[in-house]
């Protein structure tokens, strides 16, 4: 049995850990509200852009000379997985779930005989992916030096991806990012971003729309923006997911620490009482012997 002093030390150490997890939980709860609001505020732009894309793509679809971002390179041999991870830990299984999903996709693609490379956003995915694919990481984007990654970061990532695509470094790009459902569940989801998938529901265009300059010029400008918006959405979802996961994980940690403290305190009191009892018996036995 541990000595009284050791027990006291452990209780204190768990108590200070609990303080940290509690603080982190409250910080995450406050940030979550902000992140959720930001994710909601970004929805109108994304939905409008998708609408415009839909009506425009329906017109240009089926033409062979569409923009490169739409029709692709003509092959689907080399795949790029854009994995969006968080920069900080303390958020439960979020990052490992993301990495698991990315590896699952990578294995499925490799089983189909394709080559897979990774483009990593955020710090936390780097180590586990490098372990399995030491040479598979093509590039990455560091978001750790900005407090809240915004549209500028998304635009920078999109520019780099499109430059890589135009340089012929890959044929198809998929985005692996968390989707925030609520504070308890964040699901990693894979979507194709390059070539831009043709909209499934073609909007019925009943009126003749005039385009300025031309349909194709507009589409050519629209597609990079669409990719950017997708990435921006992923960054916002990541932010909300990170805070949500962090809140849940820290809540659990705080509760576990509380349980541990209770258990240790009982143990501490018991051994103290045992020590007192033995001391008393010794004194009484000594007195009787006289």
């Amino acid at each position: 049995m541990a000595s009284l002093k050791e027990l006291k030390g452990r209780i204190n150490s768990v108590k200070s850990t609990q303080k940290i997890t509690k603080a982190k939980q409250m910080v995450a709860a406050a940030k979550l509200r902000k992140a959720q609001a930001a994710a909601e505020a970004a929805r109108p732009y994304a939905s409008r852009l998708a609408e415009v894309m839909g009506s425009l793509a329906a017109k240009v679809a089926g033409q062979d000379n569409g923009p490169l971002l739409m029709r692709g390179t003509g092959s689907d041999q080399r795949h790029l997985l854009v994995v969006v991870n968080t920069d900080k830990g303390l958020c439960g299984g979020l990052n490992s779930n993301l990495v698991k999903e990315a590896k699952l996709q990578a294995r499925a693609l490799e089983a189909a005989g394709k080559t897979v490379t990774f483009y990593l956003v955020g710090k936390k995915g780097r180590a586990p992916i490098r372990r399995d694919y030491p040479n598979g990481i093509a590039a990455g984007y560091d978001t750790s030096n900005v407090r809240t990654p915004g549209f500028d970061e998304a635009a920078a990532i999109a520019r780099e991806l499109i430059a890589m695509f135009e340089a012929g470094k890959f044929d198809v790009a998929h985005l692996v990012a968390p989707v925030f459902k609520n504070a308890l569940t964040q699901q990693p989801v894979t979507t194709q971003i390059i070539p831009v998938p043709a909209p499934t529901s073609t909007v019925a265009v009943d009126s003749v729309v005039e385009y300025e300059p031309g349909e194709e010029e507009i589409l050519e400008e629209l597609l990079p923006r669409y990719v950017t918006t997708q990435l921006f959405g992923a960054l916002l979802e990541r932010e909300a997911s990170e805070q949500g996961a962090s809140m849940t994980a820290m809540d659990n940690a705080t509760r576990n620490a509380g349980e541990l403290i209770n258990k240790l305190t009982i143990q501490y009191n018991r051994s103290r009482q045992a020590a007192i009892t033995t001391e008393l018996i010794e004194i009484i036995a000594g007195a009787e012997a006289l």
Partner: protein
Amino acid sequence: MSLHFELVTPARLVRSEEVHMVVVPGTDGEFGVLEGHAPFMSTVKDGSIKVYKSAGSAPEEIKVQGGFAEVGANGLTVLAEHVEG
């Protein structure tokens, strides 16, 4: 007689209101949109959008950077990358 005008950036919905007329700096030149405008779509260059709340009133200027303007049955939607102020 009013035009539904929406100005949206990636970060938020900046404006959603009923106005009289909006002048948008399109890449191929400025164009004004009144109620009942024919369906139309254009890219927007950096510049300022002029919003006329009512006929004859002084325009309110909103500086925007890059984006699209779409005129449809439900009014004018400007998707801008950045909005100042």
